[in-house]
């Protein structure tokens, strides 16, 4: 790993590893300091948001439609720049990150996009493989990892389908598979179960939970009240761009 790696040389932990790796509760993974994001000309999507998420945490981000959840994710990916305030990911301030280091940041930060963002001319297999190719993974590595991950999200039989030959929920699961295929230290998921039925959702949640137990930090925006209430994890609630609630073991609210 390079110097923009978000974690000190993570052990080659299989996604399914059941043994919990030691948490490091002290080290912050994500820090928002007084972050405001205004979309031109005057739409305040985030309003002086300050929060800290430690390494290894599992955090739900909730809030009504249009409250700024996706905006937060896009800021973390450095797809957008904040209007003011500082964002620190894995100890690095994003504003100071050189253009050439941005790809490194993104490889260490798996993301499930709300609109999936699959490459339209590639099969499910190739879409997942692309995230590995990007970081120079060997052919053999790709051939073993991709089917494994697609199996975990229940798409073993759809590997050679193009995105437009998949149902909505299947596309979403390809996006999930792509996000964690390279075991990134930080996983951000923007409504990863919006298109999934309850049973499949539970399966995905269990998967995310297991991934979290291997030390991966997970930040998940969701509207799934049932799930949030059941999991009893840290919940951050946004409303019109303002953090209105931040509870260690909260419910949907």
């Amino acid at each position, binding site marked *: 790993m390079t110097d923009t790696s978000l974690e000190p040389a993570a052990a080659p932990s299989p996604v399914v590893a059941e043994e919990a790796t030691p948490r490091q509760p002290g080290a912050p993974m994500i820090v928002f300091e007084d972050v405001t994001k205004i979309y031109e000309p005057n739409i305040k999507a985030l309003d002086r948001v300050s929060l800290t998420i430690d390494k290894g945490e599992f955090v739900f981000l909730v809030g009504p439609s249009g409250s700024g959840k996706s905006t937060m994710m896009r800021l973390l*990916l450095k*797809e957008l720049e904040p209007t003011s305030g500082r964002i620190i990911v894995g100890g690095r301030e994003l504003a100071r990150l050189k253009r*050439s280091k941005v*790809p*490194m940041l*993104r*490889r260490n930060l798996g*993301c499930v*996009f709300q609109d999936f*963002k*699959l*490459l*339209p*001319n*590639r099969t499910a297999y190739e879409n997942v493989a*692309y*995230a590995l*190719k*990007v*970081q120079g993974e060997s052919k053999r590595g790709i051939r073993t990892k991709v089917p494994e991950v697609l199996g975990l999200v229940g798409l073993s039989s759809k590997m050679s389908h193009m995105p437009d030959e998949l149902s909505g929920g299947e596309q979403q699961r390809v996006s999930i598979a*792509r996000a964690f295929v390279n075991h990134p230290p930080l996983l951000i998921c923007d409504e990863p179960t919006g298109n999934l039925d309850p049973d499949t959702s539970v399966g995905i949640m269990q998967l995310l939970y297991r991934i979290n137990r291997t030390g991966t930090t997970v930040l998940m925006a969701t509207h799934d009240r049932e799930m949030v209430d059941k999991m009893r994890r840290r919940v951050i609630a946004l409303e019109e761009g303002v953090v209105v609630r931040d509870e260690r073991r909260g419910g949907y609210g």
Partner: protein
Amino acid sequence: MRTKLFVTEALRSIQSNLSTAIAATLTVVIGMFLLGLFIALGTWVLSYTNDVKRQLIVNVYFCTETSCGVGKNEANQRQMEAVRQQLVAMPEVKDVKFISREEALEIMRERSPALVENIVSNPLPASYQVIPHRGEDVSAIAAQLEPPPVGVEKVNYGEKEAGRVLQVAKVVGAIFVVGSAILIVASVLLIANTIRLSIFARRREVEVMKLVGATNWFVRGPFMLEGLMTGLVGSLVAVVLLLIAKEVALPAVIQRTDLTNDEVRALAFPLIALIMIGTSLLVGAIGSGITLRRFLKI
């Protein structure tokens, strides 16, 4: 290894955007065919006018017994030799050919026998045919013989014809240069434009690639390679078309003609082909590269 990856990526991209790839290739074919055609025609016309220019000469006529007026004699050997010395000393002059009075009459007899038939004495003067290095120099050479040296009756270079030929040559040359420039610019623009459009259609794809951690070069590589392939295939097809035009269509049109001549020929075909292929490769690769810049900023 990276290159191999790029090649595979470029090939799969061409495959899955086949109709776009064909459209882009077609544009390259058309642009390059026109360019090649124009260069071939243009250089052929230039070479033809050069050949015509090469036929421009200066005639230096010597005095006969009567032609230089009362009290002047026929030019003698010494005078002629002096003029020759003067001529060969000029840097513009390539060759000086002597035509005696008898030879002049012989040439005239061939041209219009009726005229010569009943002649009493030979009215024609001896002369030098002065061949310049460049057709344009005939007037300069003539000017240096002004006023005419002793024994020279007059100096003549067919001012009107020379002027006209030079004029035509100049116009043709200008049209060729301007036309080629326009066509190069035009085909470069067209090809770049097409590549722009086909990449534009895929800008979302580029965004996604960037968002999952691809570096700029990792995204750019396959696109540029695709541009190169498009350029290569397109220009090769254009070269083949041009070759067919040259080998099949041209002879059918011109049949057997005295326009073909060892001195008059277009720029060598391999060179034209090289220009076509080179241009399209360059435009293909650079065009894709530059177009992508906009979408890579994410």
